[in-house]
Structure formats: structure tokens, C-alpha cells
């Protein structure tokens, strides 16, 4: 069975790239896609990057999305609406700490709802 995918959104490409390194030391089998920085790599977020990341991270078990600042959340919500699926949840947990927990939980084979609940419980 496919594992719940994670999408890490940050205004900074470096933040999500480093977070990816951190998680990959521990969890290798969970789909993780990054959407860091704007189209041209500046500080900000990109709807197109977020859209592609969400599509790529969904291996059939849905996607849990983590973000840093509020404007990234707005972009994520817009993408979720465009994709018209209920297989995307935007987590309100802190980016680094939340994504780390989610990776471990997803790796246990839990469902999207279960991973989201497990993450919620930690924060």
C-alpha cells in the first residue's frame, strides 16, 4: 500500500531542502516533495511549484502539506481547491517538527487522516 505523501512548502528553498535531508536520514520510503522559494528561487512561494509537488507526492494515499508562513498556506489552499480532491490536508503543525513526525507516522502505513491526527496530537 502506498504511503501518505508529504509536501514541504517554505518561502526558502534552503529550509525545505535541509528539512528533506534531515527526514531522509530517518525515513526513506515516504514520498516527500519540496516547494521552496519562488519560481526564480527568491524568498516567497510559487503556486506552480506547490501544484507540481502535491501531484508528485500523491502515490495514491493522499498528501499532507506543511508550510511556514500564512501566505504559503493561502497558495496551498488555492492549489487544493484547483485539484478538487479531498486527498489533500494542509497541516497547521510547525513545518520542521511537524513534517518530521509525519514522515515517521506515514512510514508506519497510516492513512492520511491518521497521520494528520497523530501530528496534531504532538503540537
Amino acid at each position, binding site marked *: 500500500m502506498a504511503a501518505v505523501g508529504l509536501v514541504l512548502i517554505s*518561502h526558502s528553498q534552503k529550509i525545505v531542502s535541509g528539512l528533506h535531508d534531515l527526514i531522509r536520514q530517518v525515513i526513506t520510503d515516504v514520498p516527500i516533495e519540496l516547494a521552496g*522559494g*519562488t*519560481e526564480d528561487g*527568491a*524568498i*516567497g*512561494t*510559487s*503556486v*506552480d511549484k506547490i501544484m507540481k509537488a502535491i501531484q508528485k507526492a500523491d502515490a495514491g494515499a493522499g498528501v499532507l502539506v506543511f508550510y511556514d*508562513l*500564512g*501566505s504559503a498556506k*493561502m*497558495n496551498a*489552499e*488555492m492549489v487544493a481547491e484547483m485539484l478538487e480532491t479531498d486527498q489533500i490536508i494542509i497541516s497547521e503543525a510547525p513545518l520542521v517538527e511537524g513534517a518530521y513526525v509525519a514522515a515517521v507516522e506515514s512510514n508506519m502505513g497510516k492513512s492520511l487522516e491518521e497521520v494528520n491526527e497523530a501530528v496534531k496530537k504532538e503540537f
Partner: protein
Amino acid sequence: MEIDVQTAISWLNKANEKMQAEKDYLTKLDQETGDGDHGINMARGFSEVENKIANGNYETCADVFKDTAMTLMSKIGGASGPLYGTAFLRLSTALKGQDPVDEKAFAQGVQAALEGIQQRGKASVGEKTMVDVWQPIAAYLQETSAIEAAQLEKIAKEAMEATKDLIATKGRAAYFKERSKGAIDPGAASSFYLFSALAEVLKEAK
């Protein structure tokens, strides 16, 4: 007065002109209690909009505004991207199937745009955001029997200036709490330029 494809395009081009001219000022406002990119965001976004629609072959205002929405969404890396993007998307949807657009339909479209901004950003009036300009403009357009350009601009301007005394409770400026008081909200300012561009275009079209 009616709004046709040409008026819509003129509006957006005029808006771009203003965003370019006020780029540094918008950035300065955003430096007060934000990350200092609002001028860059708006100048980039609207210049891409002008390019995009210059190459299009449009039959309806709805199509013009849809491309505007998509361009702003994908080219702006900050909060104003999804917010203005959603606004123009809702405007486009509301105007679908009507061309040229009469004042009543346009007023309803702007109301839908306002609601889109509020749905996206969860801000009410008084939270020191662009909502504080869009709300009185939407109200005026719905109340009036004939849009007066000067009145439209005046309402937008006063609404923008009134954000000065507000405390931000949404967006990045909210981190500054009481300290956010004293400066105009950048998004309120860019919204003023947007409606002031509309006022000018409507004046010329008369």
C-alpha cells in the same frame, strides 16, 4: 456605462503603469511591518499581466480577467498573489457569459471578488488589509445607479488612508501588533492604485 474587452485591457494596463510608478513606495510601506517586497510583487505581477493579455485574442472580459488571475497567482511569490489572483478569478467567473458587462453585473463581480479575498485570507473589515479598500468599493458599486469615476477614486483613497490608524491582525504585519499602527497597509495602497486606474479608464471611456 459598459465595460468591454478593450476597457478591461486598458484598466489592467493603466494599473500596471501605476504599480511600476509606485513600486518603490509600495515597497517602502511593506518595509515598515512586512518583508519589503510588495512593490516588487505588484510591479512584477502586473507587468506579466500586461504581457500576457497583449498576446491574447479576447472575446470576453471574463477571459481577460481569468488570464489576469492566473498570471498574478503564478507570478507573485507573496500573499498578494493568491489574494489578487482569487479576486480576479471570482470577477471572471461572475462575468461569464455577459459581454459587454453592464454596471450592475460589474458591481456584482467586484462583490464576488471581495468575497474571494475574504475567503482566501479570512480577514474582515478593520484588520488592516486590502479588504479595507475592496469592501467600501464593492459597496459603492452596488449602491450607485451610475458609477462616478471621481467618487470611485475618492472612496478608494479614503479607505486606503484609513488603514493608517488600524492595528494589523492578518498577514505578516500582524506579527508587529500595536506597532503596525501608523503606516498605510501596502495591500490597501496597491488596491487603491488598482481602483484609481479603473476610475481613470472609466473617465476616458465616457
